[in-house]
């Protein structure tokens, strides 16, 4: 944390010196896009290539420049006082900045992401936390947290939530784990998670179930990463069979994103593999489908061409090409066509017999 304050001061000093030498100050920020990341399976996540853009202070950029500096001042203040601010709170603080205030939270979020990238830290290190919920857990796991008021350890048994679930907190760095589960199953939809919880699937398969609820949040990604690292557990991912499930959810969980490449190092789960639903499952399990939407077709074409992760893995190229050829997508819930518990009785056990065949 002290490191962050030091970086903020260094940057501000550089700007201050430039100004008083009557020269134009500038900051340099890594380019945040898929075009500026590389992928090496041995490393396991998207890494930033060197691309940076220099942002000189001119009349046209002065507003965002002023906002960035004010945000840095806020971060320094929060960190020094050992406090936190949610992204929404940071947005409201800006309402005191006169003409430099943000009109929408998306504006302040972008500035926050820029500062993260500039210092190569994550926003928690800047003292900012998101409001978003991390994801739900059920299964053979005891999470060891601290009581916020006394600092005393609390053990949370994730088998004891009945038909409910344990919620991943926004900050997960301090958590410890106890488990004898064999693997982690990360699930896209809350509906599928509910079905598996209801029928105590975690007991049957001796696993930990995690509901991601769409694209996993940073906290969820970090939780899965720490849990799998500490307890050496394989991670299997179960999403809808469409480009969004494959690329936006699975790929982001495994290797991170282009937009936040500066933090991928901490927020990726390189050991994750893909259980399903794969394009091959459509034939193998005779699943009802829907035609691909135009955005799906476009996304497939785009990732085949530009995504370093897909370009690295022939298996994914084959799967995506097969899907493009079929012109069909499939939902997790389509398994219910063979009976509501087909997924528990047949699909998952079947699949788990040959985890080696999971898509990388």
């Amino acid at each position, binding site marked *: 944390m002290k490191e962050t304050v030091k970086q903020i001061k260094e940057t*501000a000093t550089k700007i201050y010196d430039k100004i008083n030498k009557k020269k134009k100050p500038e900051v340099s920020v890594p380019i945040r896009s898929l075009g500026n990341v590389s992928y090496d399976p041995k490393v396991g996540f998207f890494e930033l290539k060197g691309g940076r853009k220099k942002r000189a202070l001119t*009349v046209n950029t002065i507003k965002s420049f002023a906002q960035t500096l004010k945000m840095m001042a806020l971060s320094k203040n929060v960190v020094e006082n050992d406090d936190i601010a949610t992204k929404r709170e940071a947005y409201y603080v800006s309402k005191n900045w006169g003409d430099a205030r943000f009109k929408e939270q998306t504006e302040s979020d972008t500035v926050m992401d820029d500062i993260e990238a500039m210092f190569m830290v994550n926003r928690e290190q800047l003292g900012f936390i998101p409001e978003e919920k991390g994801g739900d857990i059920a299964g053979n796991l005891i999470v060891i947290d601290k009581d916020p008021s006394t600092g005393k350890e609390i053990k949370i048994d994730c088998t004891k939530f009945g038909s409910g679930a344990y919620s991943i907190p926004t900050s997960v760095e301090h958590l410890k784990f106890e488990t004898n589960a064999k693997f982690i199953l990360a699930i896209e939809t809350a509906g599928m998670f509910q079905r598996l919880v209801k029928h105590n699937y975690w007991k049957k398969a001796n696993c930990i179930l995690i509901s991601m609820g769409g694209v996993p949040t940073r906290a969820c990604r970090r939780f899965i990463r720490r849990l799998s690292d500490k307890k050496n557990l394989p991670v299997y991912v179960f999403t809808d069979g469409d480009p969004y499930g494959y690329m936006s959810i699975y790929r982001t969980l495994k290797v991170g994103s282009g937009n936040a490449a500066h933090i991928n190092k901490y927020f990726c789960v390189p050991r994750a593999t893909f259980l399903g639903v794969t394009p091959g499952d459509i034939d193998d399990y005779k699943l009802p489908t829907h035609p691909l939407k135009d955005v799906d077709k476009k996304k497939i074409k785009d990732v085949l061409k530009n995504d370093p992760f897909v370009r690295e893995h022939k298996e994914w190229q084959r799967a995506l090409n097969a899907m493009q050829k079929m012109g069909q997508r499939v939902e997790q819930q389509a398994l219910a066509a063979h009976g509501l518990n087909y997924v528990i009785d047949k699909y998952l056990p079947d699949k788990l017999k040959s985890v080696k065949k999971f898509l990388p």
Partner: protein
Amino acid sequence: MQTKLSESPKEIIYAIDQAKKQREISISEFFTKNRHLLGFDNPLKSLSTTIKEGVDNALDACEESRILPDLKIEINQVSEGRFAVIIEDNGPGIVKEQIPKIFGKLLYGSKFHKLSQTRGQQGIGISAAALYGQLTTGKPIKITSKIGKGKPSHYYEIHIDTSKNEPEIIKDIEVDWNGDHGTKIELQMEGKYQKGKRSVSEYLKHTAISNPHVNLSFKEPDGTKTEYLRVTNTLPVEPREIKPHPDGIELGILIDMLKNTNSRTLQSFLCTEFSRVSSNSARSICEKANLYPNARPGRIAKQEADKLLGAMRESKFMAPPTNCLSPIGDKLLEGGLKKEIDAEFYTSVTRPASVYRGNPFMVEAAIAYGGSLNRESPVELIRFANKVPLQYQQAACAITRSVSKTAWKQYGLHQSGSNIPVGPAVIVVHIASVWVPFTSESKEAIAHYPEIIKEIKLAVQECGRQLNKFVRKQHKVKDEAKKKSYLEKYVPVIGEALKEILNLKDADEKRSIENLKIVLEKSRQK
């Protein structure tokens, strides 16, 4: 044929019957039935047409005799729906013998038979007004005219005999006139007076724009008096009369010209009666037509005239001379516009002369922009033909078409599709020609000749380019102001942030703010 006719006695009887009913139609009778063709469709328009015809004649007369025009126009309400119109000028006056014919006979005039740029063309306007007054009120037109110092001024009251198209003199006396020369007409008519769009006052205002050398005073029925003062003492260039150009001639006219010429040979006929025909080209025309250059023009029969016309059409001639045209002039048009339209920016252009169907013509355009003009409404389009404002049938006019087919977005006005552009502007277009091709006798819209449309487009585009320069400059000034306010707003915020992060002293914060302003100011001017 013979047998056929005798076999159909019924038809013969019918033809003979018809022949009894067939007789000559006098032009005045024709007018009575078709007065809308001349601009007397309704009371409102009739009043403005009358003013228009009177003003056109007065200005033509003044210009021909090189007199700076002073016009007085007065409209008085006599009773409900009835008005008295008085138009008085300081022109050359009219010779006594001519007065009854000019005002009491339709299609009598000096302008129809010659090719030169005048406002009036057919000699139908003022007598039509007189006839309209007579038809609606029964009152005769009253004319006072004086042709020079020491000459008597004559007062006439004239009635038109509609069946004969001949004037009937009701009164003919000598009266007193203050002034050396001039003409005053008074007539009563049914009418309707209105202000605003297409009104008499708008017509006079536009006339003042296109005739910056005119002094005009106008008294409305409610007593309001308006004075339009001249901005120049120079009369417009005197338009010269020209011979017809061979490119525009039609067979009927050619035959008439052949009959009436004084030339003894066909070759000399071609050289003297047409412009831009040399004796060489005259000879080659004759050759092409298989006619002797020495042939007597009067002997050329119809078929040969047809051949002659064909040969003329095949030959190439120089464009007609353009000194027959009298433009307003870009500077004066702009001056006239400045005087009557309150705007920030003015530009104008006079195009070089061009030719349609053998008739030389010239286009002028001007734009006024900004100031008090309405930003949200379509631009006001003011059309002139030979310096006369055109108020009606805007949609049918070649000027409207040319303006709406021009892409105005690139010149700084808004425009959706091919419509009249929207913005705070007035667009003025003037077309001067020895023969303006109107779509009807009421002279309200110009016909769509491609050559004319092309020239109008070029003229308004040229003005558009100047307009765009001005609009861009205006935007730049606005941008500068915006950037300046940016500095004022955000530089202190940067100072404040640096102070918070680095725990600066107030003096250091202030110094940084000043220095940053200097740095940005410097880079802004690059």
